[in-house]
């Protein structure tokens, strides 16, 4: 005989069946039954954030760093609307998160009830899918579907909206082992004929280029990518989301590409004759002006999402499939063919690339009296490179400097908000990373504007003992806004200067953490080492950096990849 459980109990059992260990959330009226059920068990730990947006970012950090889905639980109305920014962020960066929102009881839906909002309607354009569960008997199967959809194919956020009365009603509990959806069947295996054509083109290339994105990270295909690239000896560039997909310290790596990519990466893109795009989506920050994008190249594009292919740039050989599967197939075919790329052509191509690399496009003033932000990231890299380290960032100049100067050799180590560009992402994301990896060093690189958007989470870190290392590059400006105003608005710095900044050291202490302020370049390294040595404390490092420093190189909006502004 099956026992009848309440919806709230079913909810908890489903999460246990899914192997969920952590939920990020915030209670409220509509989810009180669920919180009561969570309270009466100890397999699932709940992390109490201070704002629902942070719950989703934390779940994203958890998911991005571990590969397991992140889980969020918030209440109806403002709980749900506060979560929307995080949901949209997860949608843009294809992060597998399942967000459970409370809802007013079924009979009140549509009545403008207290804390009622049309969560399904509001989130529809920024989720992979969403569900409203009106019948407790549908709850278990819906949760199963939500996890399946969030984690399969091109991952993404799924929202499950649960009215309060559904969590109180009883139903027999049965958790389906698998679900199938007649309308949802991601293509995992690439078309063999297309793969063969791609390999032929790859082997005939004279000036090849491999361009990979977040898809390689999401599909755990870094090892396959590395094998593929080394087998061919081709140059590799990563997008912002793809960093760590190929070891940054490897000679074949030419750096990140795009608006703030390296000179060598962008020039190689512009001049290549065969472009192999893998798990990347030709975002406008990568392509610049699409009319001028890779003018000499025939393009192969491997992606699990057919709608990413030929969306922005027309490609010659599209391959829909899991990037890991397709890379394996391509490696196998190349080995079996006994063919190799044109060695002489490749040598000449590398000679050209090395010339571009010799431009040293990331150079900056190392003799400066003020702290250069790039210097902080370099020293951070040196101090942490040999440890089990994860780095998150917020959005803006500090994000670009971290992407440029921190050399990520492994996947899932670099966690940032690429697509939506959400200021406030870094701190809560780092919390999620630390929850997933309690013994690792987790660093959040941030700016004084971004950090203030979710600074209340310092309280969460205190409550849950999350010993993050916050590296604040404090230049007193919204740096990226200031940079654009300098370049494109004749230095009219409208609203980009932050007057009346808090004393971050005192603030960190007020929250129960360690705060440090660093003013001189010669103190940067020692401060970092001191902070990193405090394994069980959150340390907030306030680096007073050069307010006028800009991110170079830069491709201005509308320009081609070969039209960079250099230092």
């Amino acid at each position: 005989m099956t026992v009848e459980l309440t919806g709230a109990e079913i909810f908890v059992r489903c999460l246990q069946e899914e192997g969920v260990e952590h939920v990020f959330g915030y209670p409220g009226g509509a989810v009180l039954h669920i919180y009561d059920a969570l309270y009466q068990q100890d397999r699932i730990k709940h992390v109490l954030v201070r704002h629902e947006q942070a719950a989703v970012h934390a779940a994203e950090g958890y998911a991005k760093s571990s590969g397991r889905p992140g889980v969020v639980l918030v209440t109806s109305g403002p709980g749900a609307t506060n979560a929307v920014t995080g949901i949209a962020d997860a949608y843009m960066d294809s992060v597998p998160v399942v967000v459970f929102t409370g809802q007013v009881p079924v009979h009140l839906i549509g009545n403008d009830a207290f804390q009622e909002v049309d969560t399904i309607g509001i989130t529809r354009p920024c989720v992979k899918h969403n569900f409203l569960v009106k019948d407790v008997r549908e709850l278990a199967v819906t949760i199963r579907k939500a996890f399946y959809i969030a984690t399969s194919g091109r991952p993404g956020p799924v929202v499950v909206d649960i009215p309060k009365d559904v969590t109180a009603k009883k139903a027999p509990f049965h958790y389906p082992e698998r679900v199938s959806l007649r309308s949802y069947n991601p293509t995992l295996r690439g078309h063999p004929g297309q793969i063969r054509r791609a390999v032929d083109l790859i082997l005939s290339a004279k000036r090849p280029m491999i361009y990979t994105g977040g898809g390689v990270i999401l599909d755990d295909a870094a090892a396959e990518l590395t094998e593929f690239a080394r087998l061919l000896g081709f140059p590799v560039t990563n997008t912002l989301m793809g960093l760590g997909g190929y070891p940054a310290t490897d000679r074949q790596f030419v750096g990140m590409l795009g608006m703030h990519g390296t000179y060598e990466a962008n020039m190689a893109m512009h001049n290549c004759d065969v472009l192999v795009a893998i798990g990347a989506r030709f975002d406008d920050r990568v392509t610049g002006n699409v009319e001028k994008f890779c003018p000499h190249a025939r393009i192969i594009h491997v992606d699990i999402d057919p709608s990413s292919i030929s969306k922005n740039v027309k490609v010659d050989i599209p391959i829909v499939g899991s990037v890991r599967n397709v890379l394996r197939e391509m490696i196998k075919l190349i080995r079996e063919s006994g063919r190799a790329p044109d060695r002489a052509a490749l040598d000449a191509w590398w000679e050209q690339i090395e010339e571009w690399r010799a431009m040293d496009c990331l150079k900056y003033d190392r003799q400066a009296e003020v702290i250069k932000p790039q210097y902080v990231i370099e020293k951070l890299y040196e101090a942490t490179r040999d440890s089990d380290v994860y780095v998150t960032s917020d959005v803006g100049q500090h994000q670009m400097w971290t992407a440029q100067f921190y050399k990520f050799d492994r996947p899932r180590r670099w966690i940032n908000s690429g697509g939506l560009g959400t200021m406030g992402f870094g701190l809560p994301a780092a919390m999620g990373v630390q929850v997933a990896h309690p013994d690792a060093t987790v660093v959040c690189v941030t700016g004084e504007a971004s950090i203030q958007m979710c600074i209340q989470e310092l309280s969460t870190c205190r409550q849950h003992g999350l010993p993050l290392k916050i590296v604040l590059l404090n230049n007193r400006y919204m740096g990226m806004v200031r940079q654009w105003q300098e370049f494109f608005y004749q230095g009219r710095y409208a609203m980009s200067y932050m007057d009346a900044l808090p004393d971050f050291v005192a603030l960190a202490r007020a929250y129960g953490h360690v705060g440090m302020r660093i003013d001189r370049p010669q103190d940067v390294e020692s401060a970092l080492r001191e902070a990193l040595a405090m394994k069980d404390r959150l340390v907030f490092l306030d680096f007073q950096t050069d307010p006028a420093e800009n991110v170079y190189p830069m491709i201005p909006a509308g320009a081609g990849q070969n039209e960079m502004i250099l230092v």
Partner: protein
Amino acid sequence: MRHIISMLLENEAGALARVAGLFSARGYNIESLTVAPTEDPSLSRLTLVTSGNDEIIEQITKQLNKLIDVVKLVDLTEGAHIEREMMLVKVRAAESEARAELKRLVDIFRGRIIDVTERTYTIEMTGTGDKLDAFIDAVGRRAILEVVRTGVSGIARGEKALRL
């Protein structure tokens, strides 16, 4: 170019909103849209008319296919097909001469008069959008009191069928 895209949709609350929302969110246009359940009550058939160049239509079909509620989809304009639209139109018909002329027009267009008052005729007509447009022109806009069109529905010619 004008395309008729027809799809089988999960017959669930919100499925139509997902399709309509996709068009507004991505800036595609919808000229007409019609939806109703099929012989299988779990499925609806939705037919919409849109326009765009080949790249836009390719994106539209890919994005629609990505929606979890879209089960199967076909661009009817890629092959031979039949399209029909139904129209109900109420026209002023007060004098006997006008009434006779209208009756003749309705016969020529193979429509039917389905409601009559002393001052009006209500006409039912089925055909392609062009034919319905032509009828409206022939009657003259000044005589028309109300037009209700269903939007285009369509089906492939021959043995091809959109089914699971």
